[in-house]
């Protein structure tokens, strides 16, 4: 599948942008030309040879802060996506296999989580649990997990109810073989799409939280935090928010682009995601979405 | 294996017989069914006699001027030179029925869609002309098309459920046509649409009027679709595989309804089907298509009794081989 994603122009662009961001996250703190926490006399300095992106209100080098802050933002987004994947997909698939009680319970739970304004809830829960980025990301991951639950469940249902699995069972294929041959092929692509989307969503949430000063201790730089500190000095440096804003948007865009590319190459299976998301929209459709729609 | 010789023996004379059997075979499976009162009656009378009449009169007087005239129509991709339909010609006069028979992909549906001006995008009429009531369709503006459809030419299709808007009550969809095309008021349109539903022999038209498509069965939906198609009083009705997905008794009733409409209102019918029996029952003239080519064309009885092209012969033979009469025949013999 990786090769097929890379065969698309959009897939190549998405992967390239995300690779650059990942490299920033890995090596950014090492590349920072100056100490991101060191203050200096020249506050709110414009772009210059010494400060490529100028300095902030305490005279700290913006480029260094940007590079140093990349790791937190990217790791945060990954934490959100992986938490959501584990918390959502496992019960999603189990809800197809295990009994009705489990199915009913998890469906209600997914409905509950979806109905919560997650940014608000994340702010509330994090404030109560204490100010730490990992808590913040785990909570956010749980809150966005219904997407994975629905996707995994829709894909699982479509496999479980499909005639070809029945046919394979009748023709005497082993369960293990069926899982390898049919179930993975059906379940993995939509999960990959959801994962890429969630990285984008997670990135926005991390940036929003750090923008509000939640999840990190004050002097530590983050992309969201940079924007927040720029806000107070817009009249002095109106172009200052540009760099962190562009970085955030490029990352989110690349994640969405990757999601689309994966969906495009996975064809029929990728559409399970769309169905899964539309299940709440009560659309008519074959096998997969109907039980979801009926249950919501 | 005695059937072999017996079949060949039967081929020649029982073609007449087969026409006959074909036409009432949809009804005959249930002679004990009280819903099939037409069982003993065969529609043979409308066969040869009218056909000859139509041919004698074709193009002679203004009264029988063809309402739909297709001249050597070719359909294909305009860019690539792939041609799908290689020249179809026919004339249809009011009150007559033309059948187009052929396997799927033979171009019969494309021909009909060309006449309706709804060819799916890559395809276009590359040569030839279609005239609806004397107007060549190539010259029609979109607005004129809109005016013409429904009032002069209309159509019903296979899978009637999908051709009705799922989120509107069926009565409202018929009333809409009446209000737009006939300028009726809301109240008049309602009354008239109930009347139309009754005229297509739906049992409780008032009830059906207020139902959604998903609440109706396939046969009922096809009647509703016919009612909507004839609401604005068109002169031509194209029935594209209109009975294909229906079960045999319902199919017979729908065909009966079309026949009745033709006799009552002078509607000109184009019946497209892959089933020879359907066409034989209803049509004066038959066009046999294969691979975009018209392989045989002529009065129904002539084509059925005296097929010239091997493909037509094959169609008829298959019908005999797999049709019900194969099972009925030994019984009769016994």
């Amino acid at each position, binding site marked *: 599948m990786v090769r097929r994603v890379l065969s698309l122009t959009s897939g190549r662009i998405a992967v390239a942008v995300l690779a650059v961001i990942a490299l920033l996250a890995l090596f950014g703190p090492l590349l920072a030309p100056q100490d991101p926490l060191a203050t200096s006399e020249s506050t709110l300095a414009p772009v210059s040879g010494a400060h490529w992106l100028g300095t902030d209100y305490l005279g700290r080098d913006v480029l260094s802060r940007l590079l140093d802050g990349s790791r937190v933002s990217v790791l945060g987004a990954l934490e959100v996506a992986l938490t959501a994947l584990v918390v959502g997909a496992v019960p999603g698939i189990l809800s197809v296999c295990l009994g009705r009680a489990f199915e009913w319970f998890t469906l209600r739970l997914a409905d509950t989580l*979806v109905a919560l*304004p997650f940014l608000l809830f994340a702010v*509330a829960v994090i404030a*109560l649990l204490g100010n730490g980025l990992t808590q913040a990301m785990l909570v956010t991951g749980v809150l966005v997990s219904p997407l994975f639950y629905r996707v995994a469940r829709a894909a699982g249902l479509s496999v479980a109810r499909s005639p070809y699995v029945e046919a394979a069972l009748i023709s005497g294929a082993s369960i293990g073989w069926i899982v390898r041959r049919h179930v993975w092929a059906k379940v993995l692509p939509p999960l990959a799409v959801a994962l890429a989307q969630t990285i984008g969503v997670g990135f926005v949430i991390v940036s929003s939280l750090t923008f509000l000063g939640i999840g990190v201790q004050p002097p530590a730089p983050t992309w969201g935090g940079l924007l927040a500190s720029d806000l107070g000095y817009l009249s002095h440096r109106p172009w200052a928010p540009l760099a962190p804003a562009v970085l955030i*948007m490029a990352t989110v865009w690349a994640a969405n682009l990757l999601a689309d590319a994966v969906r495009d190459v996975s064809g029929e299976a990728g559409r399970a995601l769309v169905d899964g998301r539309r299940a709440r929209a009560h659309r008519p459709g074959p096998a997969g979405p109907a039980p979801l729609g009926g249950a919501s | 294996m005695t059937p072999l010789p017996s079949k060949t023996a039967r081929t020649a004379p029982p073609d007449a017989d087969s026409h006959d059997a074909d036409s009432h075979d949809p009804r005959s499976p249930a002679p004990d069914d009280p819903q099939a009162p037409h069982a003993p009656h065969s529609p043979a009378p409308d066969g040869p006699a009218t056909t000859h009449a139509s041919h004698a009169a074709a193009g002679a007087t203004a009264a029988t001027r063809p309402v739909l005239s297709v001249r050597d129509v070719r359909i294909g991709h305009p860019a690539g030179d792939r041609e799908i339909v290689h020249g179809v010609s026919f004339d249809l006069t009011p009150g007559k029925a033309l059948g187009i028979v052929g396997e799927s992909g033979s171009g019969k549906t494309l021909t009909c869609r060309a006449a309706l001006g709804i060819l799916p995008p890559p395809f276009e009429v590359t040569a030839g002309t279609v005239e609806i009531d004397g107007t060549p369709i190539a010259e029609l503006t979109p607005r004129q098309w809109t005016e013409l459809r429904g009032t002069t030419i209309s159509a019903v299709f296979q899978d009637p459920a999908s051709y*009705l808007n*799922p989120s509107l009550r069926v009565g409202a969809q018929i009333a809409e*046509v009446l209000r*737009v095309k006939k300028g009726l008021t809301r109240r008049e349109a309602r009354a008239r649409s109930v009347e139309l539903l009754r005229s297509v022999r739906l049992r409780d038209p008032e009830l059906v009027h*207020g139902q959604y498509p998903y609440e109706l069965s396939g046969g009922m939906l096809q009647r509703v679709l016919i009612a909507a198609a004839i609401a604005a009083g068109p002169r031509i009705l194209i029935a594209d595989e209109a009975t294909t997905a229906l079960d045999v008794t319902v199919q017979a009733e729908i065909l009966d309804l079309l026949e009745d409409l033709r006799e009552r209102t002078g509607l000109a019918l184009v019946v497209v089907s892959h089933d020879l029996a359907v066409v034989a029952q209803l049509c004066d003239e038959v066009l046999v298509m294969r691979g975009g080519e018209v392989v045989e064309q002529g009065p129904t009885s002539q084509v059925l009794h005296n097929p010239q092209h091997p493909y037509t012969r094959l169609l008829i033979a298959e019908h005999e081989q797999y049709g019900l009469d194969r099972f009925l025949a030994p019984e009769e013999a016994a």
Partner: protein
Amino acid sequence: MTTTEAQAGPALRRGVVAARTRHTLGRVLVTLTRSVAIFVPVFLVATFVTFALRSLSGLSPARIQLGEDATPEAVARIEAEWGLDRPFLVQYGDWFSGVLHGQLGTSWTNGADISTLIGLGLGVSLSVATFALVIGVVTGFALGAVAGLRRTTWVDRAITGFVTVISVMPAFVVGIVLVAVFAVGLGLFPSAGYVPAEQGFGPWLAHITLPAIALSFDVVADVARQLRSGLVAAYRENYVTGAVVRGLSPRRIFFGHVLRNALGPTLATLGLKFPSLVGASVVTEWIFGLQGFGRFANDAAQAGDVPAVQGVLVVSIVLVVSFNLIVNLVLARVTPAAQRGV
């Protein structure tokens, strides 16, 4: 062929019509009940979790009022004052019955009534959110409809590209850009603050315009995308061909047939969008210095004012559920039961 009731004959027709009216009423009731049925567990789980978290976090009004170096006796006295020494379930039950009576308790930080505090902020937030929804729906609708009608042309591609760009712009980024350009740069709008509508419609509108636009981007993108794909899908349906063949005009087919069917998913998306709109208000109100609901939530959370945070969650859930209720009722009108999989 015909349904059994069809044979009932005209005598029963009046009864059938009456039953249909009842049926419509029943559908509304079913929609209402279903929304409430989802709402109850949401409500219980969310409030219970926040309550449990308070117990786990060890946050207490004593810390806020007395500071970190209070004596254990003083802390115990204050906690007893707030009734925090009672068993957990008793506290929860007490609080819950208060909520049912519209009482959200008192703030730990200043002893003010939380219902009043939230009520003050809600006016601001609802003004902004409603305006954002209006902008989002109108703009999104226009863009989606044009793209859907001119599908696969350059207009469609341009709109799709534009929508993709604005869909990746988080509300706070848009907010900052808007402030930088329209408030600081051009000076067209005030950069912060709020004026109630009673003190003049113009100033009120001027103050909520930028935050509403910032919030609306997400809605615009989602509505436009959903409507476009809905329209494209609907135009592929056979019933469009059916309507064409019956001689209906393109305009009539669009408004009477296609739009109706494309609208369902779009409306449903809008229902799902509302929670994130409420969430994003936390950030936009911070940027635009609005003393609204989101700002109150943020301040309360950062101060560790648990009753206030709980109040915020209760109100946000009520908001989300009421909005979904409206959307579901509209959906029930636009599309019949079969389409919604009832």
